[in-house]
């Protein structure tokens, strides 16, 4: 090395952090045994963890009898959905897989990780013995679809637009396929069940509450007193009553508003109830986002000549919603979990299936297995949502300006 350093080299040298000199022993000492009191804590924690793990593992692998789950697996997934029409559910799943694959190929990042998780779930199901061979075939097809989407996605012309449109029409398409609406043999909503029903209700509630929540939040800030007080009253009433009440009221009251002879079935009523309920909370989240904006943003938007609609769409909402992503996702997760309450008004969602299954004399006393299983299902989905939200916050730079 020459003795005369160039300026940038010397800068680099002064900025170099000191190398960590800790070995394993050093790390243990620093993080676990750095004081007498902390050493005791460490030992106690290790013991507690050991006993919990030992107990759980023993239970899962020796005591528990999983037949109650494996033999009712189809029930847990789709409820009483007509067996010879199950291909329609599979087709819906295939469409969703395709969208996941395409999105993963185009946008990478979070959605790719989610697709990988989805594929692993499929893969696990193709290996376990209790899934029927037809099911395994469909799962294999779904894996292939994800992979195909992943590779085709980036190479397709206009891929982003196509994929977005695909997501947009996916929901009506799924409802159409599942119900049949005269084109296919009808499968009444009252026999939709299990995870399928749970997911449908949550997705409707979450997606539907979004636009309604935004409108309510804007209405609440309106200068027109009628609109303003209507929105405030609505939001405050809904937030003051429990979801289960809303479900009961949806059962009894929605029919009262309908013309004679016109009937809405149970599932749709519950979906309406869940959507209207979630919308009130969404409205408050959005309002929080609106309040986090500086007045200058509204004024700058006006000053450059944007009309109120453009200013909302381009300036205000993107910033307001971005600021409250954590709250919105939190709300979505809790809605997803709260769908379990529909079991009380007679729908057989995942929890409803659990109730019927454990009442079956053949599986008497096996309720522990059932609850552990559905808890796992809820956890996988809820955790995926919160994981995506954290990634999304990071990539959008929430909290940094």
């Amino acid at each position, binding site marked *: 090395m020459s003795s005369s350093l160039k300026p940038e080299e010397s800068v680099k040298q002064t900025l170099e952090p000191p190398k960590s000199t800790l070995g394993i022993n050093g790390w243990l000492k620093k993080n676990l045994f750095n004081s007498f009191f902390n050493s005791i804590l460490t030992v106690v924690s290790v013991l507690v963890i050991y006993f919990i793990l030992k107990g759980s593992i023993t239970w899962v692998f020796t005591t528990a009898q999983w037949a109650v789950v494996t033999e009712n697996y189809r029930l847990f997934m789709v409820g009483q959905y007509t067996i010879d029409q199950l291909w329609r559910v599979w087709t819906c799943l295939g469409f969703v897989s395709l969208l996941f694959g395409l999105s993963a190929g185009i946008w990478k990042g979070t959605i790719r990780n989610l697709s990988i998780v989805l594929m692993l779930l499929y893969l696990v199901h193709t290996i376990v013995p209790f899934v029927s061979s037809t099911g395994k075939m469909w799962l294999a097809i779904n894996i292939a679809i994800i992979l195909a989407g992943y590779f085709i996605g980036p190479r397709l012309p206009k891929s982003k637009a196509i994929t977005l449109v695909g997501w947009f029409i996916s929901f009506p398409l799924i409802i159409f396929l599942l119900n049949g609406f005269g084109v296919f043999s009808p499968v009444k909503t009252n026999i939709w069940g299990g995870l399928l029903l749970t997911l449908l209700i949550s997705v409707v509630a979450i997606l539907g509450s979004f636009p309604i929540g935004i409108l309510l939040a804007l209405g609440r800030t309106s200068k027109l007193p009628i609109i303003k007080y209507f929105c405030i009253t609505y939001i405050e009433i809904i937030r003051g009553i429990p979801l289960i009440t809303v479900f009961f009221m949806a059962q009894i009251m929605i029919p009262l508003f309908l013309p004679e002879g016109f009937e809405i079935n149970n599932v749709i009523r519950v979906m309406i109830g869940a959507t209207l309920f979630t919308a009130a909370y969404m409205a408050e989240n959005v309002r929080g986002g609106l309040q986090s904006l*500086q007045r*200058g*943003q509204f*004024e*700058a*938007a*006006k*000053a*450059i*000549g*944007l*009309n109120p609609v*453009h200013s909302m769409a*381009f*300036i205000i909402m*993107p*910033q307001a919603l*971005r600021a409250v992503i954590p709250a919105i996702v939190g709300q979505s997760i809790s809605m997803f979990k709260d769908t379990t309450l529909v079991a009380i008004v007679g729908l057989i969602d995942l929890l409803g299936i659990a109730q019927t299954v454990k009442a079956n004399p053949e599986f008497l006393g096996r309720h522990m297995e059932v609850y552990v299983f559905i808890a796992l299902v809820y956890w996988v989905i809820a955790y995926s949502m919160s994981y995506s939200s954290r990634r999304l916050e990071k990539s959008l730079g929430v909290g*940094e*300006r």
Partner: protein
Amino acid sequence: MAQTKLQVTKAKEGEEIIACDKVNKWFGSLHVLKDVSLSVTKGEVVVILGPSGSGKSTFIRTINALEEIQKGQIHIDGINLSHDVKNIEAIRRETGMVFQQFNLFPHMTILKNITLAPIWVRKKPKAEAEKEAFELLERVGIPEQAHKYPGQLSGGQQQRVAIARALAMQPEIMLFDEPTSALDPEMIKEVLDVMKELARSGITMLVVTHEMGFAREVADRIVLFDEGEIIETGTPTELFDNPQHERTKLFLSQIL
């Protein structure tokens, strides 16, 4: 939609472009503008001085209807600034505004900040809007920042982007509300330089500022505000070297 578009009879050089007649404004019971009358001709650069809290910002914000007035009349380019939404939108298209706090849109790149209104309000094709945006960035001296976000720029650069954004609508009038007051001292000059260049280009400007050097050098006319009233108006020489009013003398003695 063609027939709903307002016919703007553009003022020519030297004709009246802003006409404020006995403008009054209250915030609750606080009387912030008291019978303010001001006439500005096209191409004129008017600097508004006055102690803080005297109503300068409020006044300049009434001109593009960011503040409603309760009494009096404002005409911009012949358009009556009334409660009519159509009129207000027409006037906002004709006036650009630069704020003390820049107010750039933090979630958009510099380029999108500038092209948004031309594309959605003026209905320009994207390519054309972007080409003009680059020309404007060139003009304010920061063409290399187009794809960055506002948060990545210094205060002086952000304020120059804000000027470019306002200019992108090709306004007849530019309003500046203390454009350098939030800047670190070393960045004030770069913004003032851009404003000087603008003033020379012949655009009508209304500038609230505490930069006396700028006022003396660039202003065609200076307006002095105090307690919601116009105390005195005149050319820089008249006002700085031979102030008529006691309150003008007091203000100048405090600030110089």
